[in-house]
């Protein structure tokens, strides 16, 4: 049978390779704008105004209206050949927005407002804090849950930890990808992205539990087999199911991505990305890690490098 577990060192290496570009992007982003990923106004506070113009306008014209009023820190993104404008600036009151829209209409022709969102900075900070708490809470809960579900297996806590490591891997890869996308296309991380991350965490743990469950079942049934053989067998036995399930969920997400509304495209993409990463990391991060741990290979690696340094 195909020996995934045997090639575990390669797979762990591949995982590292996946993470590195993401981390690089996040560092660059941090140096450029002060945050590792582009944050939406949900976290930073500010105003988002989306307008539809009847005639094509230039972003400079739009921007000038704002800078004339002292709102220098304004960015304008045009779409649909200059007819759709997405404007980001400081938080503004409803009255100011009405004035600005009037002025824009006087200068650039009739327009309609598609979206107006203004978030004060305190709310933004709170959302950020709550987001961090939510991620930590989910991690703790899941660790506890896995440890509890596998309490009768020797070294139960290992399963929980491997699940958490896999989970962090998925989260870091997701953030990394959005860091890259933020640099290239200006994609932002908003409250929905957070929901996507938390959902992905939920599903990805779901996935890994099925494999761990099978390992748990096989250990008493196959006494005498070496640990890595049992693990590999369990992996292959559950492979069908993992792929089939992910495939179905992916079908639906791709359909929404292609045919669904534009406003949730990034959200759906985040979920899709997370699911693909999740499937990969169940097989190639969580499980190999479990074996590596069991066999004490980390200790061996450290000892070997110390020996060669000596």
């Amino acid at each position: 049978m195909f020996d995934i577990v045997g090639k575990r060192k390669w797979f762990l290496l591949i995982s590292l390779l996946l993470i590195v570009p993401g981390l690089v992007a996040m560092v660059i982003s941090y140096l450029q704008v002060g945050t590792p990923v582009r944050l939406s106004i949900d976290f930073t506070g500010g105003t988002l105004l989306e307008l539809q113009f009847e005639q094509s306008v230039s972003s400079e014209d739009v921007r000038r209206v704002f800078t004339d009023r002292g709102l220098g820190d304004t960015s304008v993104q045009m779409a649909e050949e200059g007819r759709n404008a997405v404007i980001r600036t400081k938080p503004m009151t409803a009255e100011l927005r009405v004035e600005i829209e009037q002025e824009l209409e006087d200068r650039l022709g009739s327009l309609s407002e598609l979206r107006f969102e203004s978030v004060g900075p305190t709310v933004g900070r709170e959302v950020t804090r709550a987001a961090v708490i939510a991620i930590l809470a989910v991690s703790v809960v899941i660790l506890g849950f896995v440890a509890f579900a596998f309490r009768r297996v020797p070294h139960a806590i290992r399963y929980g930890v491997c699940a958490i490591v896999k989970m962090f891997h998925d989260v870091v890869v997701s953030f990394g990808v959005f860091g890259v996308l933020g640099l290239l296309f200006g994609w932002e991380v908003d409250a929905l992205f957070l929901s996507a991350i938390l959902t992905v965490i939920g599903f990805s743990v779901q996935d890994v539990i099925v494999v761990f469950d099978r390992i748990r079942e096989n250990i008493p049934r196959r006494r005498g087999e070496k640990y890595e053989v049992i693990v590999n067998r369990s992996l292959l036995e559950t492979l069908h199911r993992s792929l089939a399930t992910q495939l179905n969920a992916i079908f639906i997400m791709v359909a929404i991505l292609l045919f669904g509304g534009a406003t949730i495209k990034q959200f759906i993409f985040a979920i899709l990305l997370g699911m693909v990463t999740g499937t990969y990391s169940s097989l190639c991060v969580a499980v190999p890690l479990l074996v590596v741990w069991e066999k004490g290979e980390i200790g061996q690696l450290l000892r070997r490098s110390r020996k060669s340094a000596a």
Partner: protein
Amino acid sequence: MRQRDIQLLALIVFLTVIGAWVVWPDNPGLHIHWGPINLDRDIDTHLGLDLQGGMQVLLEADVPADFSITRDSMAAAKSIVENRVNGLGVSEPLVQVAGEDRILVELPGIDDPERAVATLKETGLLEFIDAGSTFLMPGTVVKTDFGQADAGIPEPAEDLTPTERVYVSVITGKDLKGAEVYLDQYSKPSISLEFTDEGAEIFAEHTAANISKYLAIVLDKEVISCPIIETPIPDGKATIRGEFSLEDARSIVIQLKYGALPIPLKIVENRTIGPSLGEDSVEKSVTAGTIGLIVVLLFMAIYYRLPGVLADLALVIYAMISFALFKLIPVTLTLPGIAGFLLSVGTAVDANILIFERMKEELRAGKSLNMAIRAGFSRAWTSIRDSNLSTLLTCAILFWFGSNLGASMVKGFAVTLFLGVVVSMFTAVTVTRTFIRVVFSLTGERLREKKWLLGI
């Protein structure tokens, strides 16, 4: 066929029929007036703000940092805001306390969001102040002694400008019994007030003692009118005449009718979505969902053959029951909420896949069809339960996150995903199992020979 299977099948058919009726568009709703039961429920899809357009505002208590806000005063503020919202005449509004010091207001389909927000957030404190012999221009902002226990000795009027002087509050909105908008014969709006008995007494006394003096009418510390007292007013009725529009008058009346807010509020978050964006999203989501569902149905049928087709049937029933639940509870559907629902459809198959893979293993190992079915379902159940539990826990945390911060998109997503997973656990196991058992009990062990049909 076992007795239990027949019963379950009947139950499933029953639920399906009810589900179909609930989900059907233009549902007439439940109107039962039979004996002691009086039920009037409309059954509609409740669309969130991002799908029907509207406005969401987060109001926060605007007090100094060391001021402690009691839950009672927040509850009082919330109910005043709620009354005002109802006074605006918006259909299906939402007013909720969020966290410790915030109120979330959602106004779907509102025409004039700016005025609505102004009406809601203004404190609404009405005062009649003794302006002596100084006429105050409407629009002047003044200081009054309302709420100050010891206002100190008022300075002589001549030394201070109108905006520095602290005026004496004669009577306030607390003593109001009612307020109405009144149109005179020139269609010019004015506001007629009626005071309570105590208020009428105070008013009568003051007007009798202050003929030919100005009595300024002040709303939230801004003068809106400054009439001269010409005669004493014994009946506790007064009219505010000024240069305001009909909408202004209506706003003011709404603020006065339900009382002044105990704590001042400020806007910390304001989101408005135009309806066109929403309509577009609904259409696209329905298309996308349908396409996705069809792909999943095809996949299951091709990959798992006969059990796959049965699972497809169970899946359609699942989607219908879930959606029926959304309509009945009701759950407000947002765009992420719809995505959550579709996601749960995608994973409803997961449970079935787990079961089928187990069944295939048992069949390959040589067990009989009956044993394989039984083993497949019972063995897979622990996996299904444990793995769905983690998603449910995540949903709970997301829900907490959403409600505390007034992020109804996140909340909507959490709710639909949660419900979807719960219902899927039921349909995947009970419904599919019943279908399979019924079919296999009709065909018998012979089916085991037709490996192709079983997808082994």
